[in-house]
């Protein structure tokens, strides 16, 4: 069964080149609504699990290519539309929200710092000891996030955190071109004991999209 896969939305500008192809060598097309463009291709649906990893990398390459030109609103790999008209209706209904977000994020990129608890060998101790250790790790994590917020105050255009059971994720919005400053500043911060950090980016600023764009009401779908 053929479906329509949306990759990302972006604002039309002169000199933008499209990637050569989409998933599995599929031809790429654009849907236009005023200055907004949405890149899409046809895909065979559902995906075979054996190609998921390859498709994930190919999808990422398409989005990264467009992101190298400027801000994009990425769709999720497994979000597909029944047919081209459904995507066209979607773009028509939501182009104003998408364009607004893209203008707001035009020169910004998302950098990330994942702070995670180092795996520990199981220790034969009481539940109270375990809870104390856990609380200590959480305090260390909170202190690190506060420090990141402080040292990036002049560089950051926005900072969000998300907690998970294994640590914290810190998302920072910085101007395009300041990625290395982010890396060198955060890399030089001391990490609390028993915590590790991993930096990545630049990514499209997906964590900073408005709710209207992140979870749009669907139109043209049954």
């Amino acid at each position: 069964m053929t479906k329509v896969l949306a990759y990302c939305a972006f604002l039309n500008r002169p000199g933008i080149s499209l990637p050569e192809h989409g998933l599995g060598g599929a031809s790429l097309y654009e849907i236009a609504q005023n200055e907004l463009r949405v890149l899409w291709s046809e895909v065979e649906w559902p995906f075979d699990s054996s190609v998921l990893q390859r498709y994930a990398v190919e999808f990422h390459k398409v989005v990264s290519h467009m992101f190298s030109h400027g801000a994009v609103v990425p769709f999720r790999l497994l979000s597909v539309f029944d047919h081209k008209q459904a995507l066209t209706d979607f773009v028509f209904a939501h182009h104003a929200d998408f364009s607004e977000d893209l203008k707001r994020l035009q020169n910004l990129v998302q950098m990330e710092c994942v702070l995670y608890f180092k795996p520990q060998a199981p220790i034969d101790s009481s539940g109270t000891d375990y809870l104390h250790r856990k609380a200590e790790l959480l305090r260390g994590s909170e202190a690190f996030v506060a420090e990141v917020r402080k040292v990036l105050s002049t560089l950051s255009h926005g900072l969000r955190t998300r907690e998970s059971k294994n640590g914290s994720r810190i998302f920072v919005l910085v101007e395009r071109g300041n990625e290395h400053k982010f890396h060198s500043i955060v890399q030089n911060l001391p990490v609390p004991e028993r915590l590790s950090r991993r930096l990545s980016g630049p990514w499209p600023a997906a964590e900073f999209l408005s709710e209207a764009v992140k979870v749009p009401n669907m139109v043209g779908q049954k």
Partner: protein
Amino acid sequence: MQNDFEPVALVGASDQDISLLDILDHVLNAGVIVHGSLVLSLAGVDLVYVGLNVVLTSVETALRTLRAEEKKRELS
């Protein structure tokens, strides 16, 4: 078999290593969530099917969305 943290060569990527795990996390969990009439059958990936309307996302993200929707309903 490729390790989750093994860097992969990417066009347009930054000079930092990007792992397959990072890519999977971003392409599956970051960006626009589209609700539609979809069929999903992917082995080994935790995805959610909700009635006629499908939310294609990780379980973690889906739970967050569902909790937020529940809260909204409670408040209205």
